[in-house]
């Protein structure tokens, strides 16, 4: 990586983190009627029992993942459905849709990118016994937000 490349990458990370956090906050506020507060990811232990992911292709190329524990995924589904306790299938579906909306909302906030970037349909992994390795080798932005006291980890990894 060149010095210029390093600077450009750091600039993206600094500029895009607030945009990503705003995109997340809007999704939770509008679709779940609740506010989520950004926290330092390093201060919370990751318990990724559910991992949702949406791929990006085009001007932005990479993957956005949303991880949380099973109880949090079920709470999200219950909030979205607004009624009875949710099943594991609904929890996975809800987290996938949250991931989809965060990715789309983030993309739409980047001027000039939204026209040239496509999203995949979401995929969701249930269970935490896996290792995740993305081939994206460029910008990596990670944040965590507290939802009803539990952390939700959001990571955007892009090809350089």
């Amino acid at each position, binding site marked *: 990586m060149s010095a210029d490349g390093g600077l450009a990458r750091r600039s993206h990370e600094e500029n895009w983190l607030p945009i990503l956090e705003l995109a997340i906050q809007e999704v939770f506020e509008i679709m779940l009627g609740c506010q989520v507060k950004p926290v330092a990811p390093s201060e919370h232990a990751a318990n990724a029992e559910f991992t949702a992911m949406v791929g990006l292709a085009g001007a932005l190329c990479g993957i956005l993942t949303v991880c949380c524990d099973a109880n949090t995924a079920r709470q999200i589904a219950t909030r*979205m459905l607004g009624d009875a306790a949710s099943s594991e299938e609904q929890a996975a579906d809800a987290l996938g849709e949250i991931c989809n909306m965060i990715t*789309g909302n983030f993309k739409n906030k980047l001027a000039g990118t939204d026209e040239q970037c496509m999203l995949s349909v979401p995929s969701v992994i249930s269970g935490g016994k896996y290792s995740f390795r993305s081939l994206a080798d460029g910008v990596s932005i990670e944040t965590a937000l507290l939802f009803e006291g539990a952390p939700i980890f959001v990571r955007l990894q892009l090809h350089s």
Partner: protein
Amino acid sequence: MDDSSVMRKIVERSLRQAGIELEKVVEAANGAEALAALQSNVVDLILCDINMPVMDGLEFVRQVATVETAKGVPIVMITTEGSESHVVQALSAGARGYIRKPFTPDQVKEHVLPLLGKKP
């Protein structure tokens, strides 16, 4: 129509919150399922996602014009794809409205009621 069953329920709830009486709701997880469902169901309104497996929403809008029972039925896209080119493609293909996710029940009301001849 949406590949997420949770999102289909949210959209249905938004329609009820808008004061629309839903006599019957026909759900589909993609464009192909929706085209098949329209062969045996007559509907007044179609709400349609874009990014779906099997057949996406834009292709559905293009093909639905060939379904006799669905001709003239207003279609509103509800999607995370917010770019101008997607809006233009959808409206050019025949969609009558476009709502970006995340959305509020009020946005659904504003877009849908006029298409059903009601005041928002």
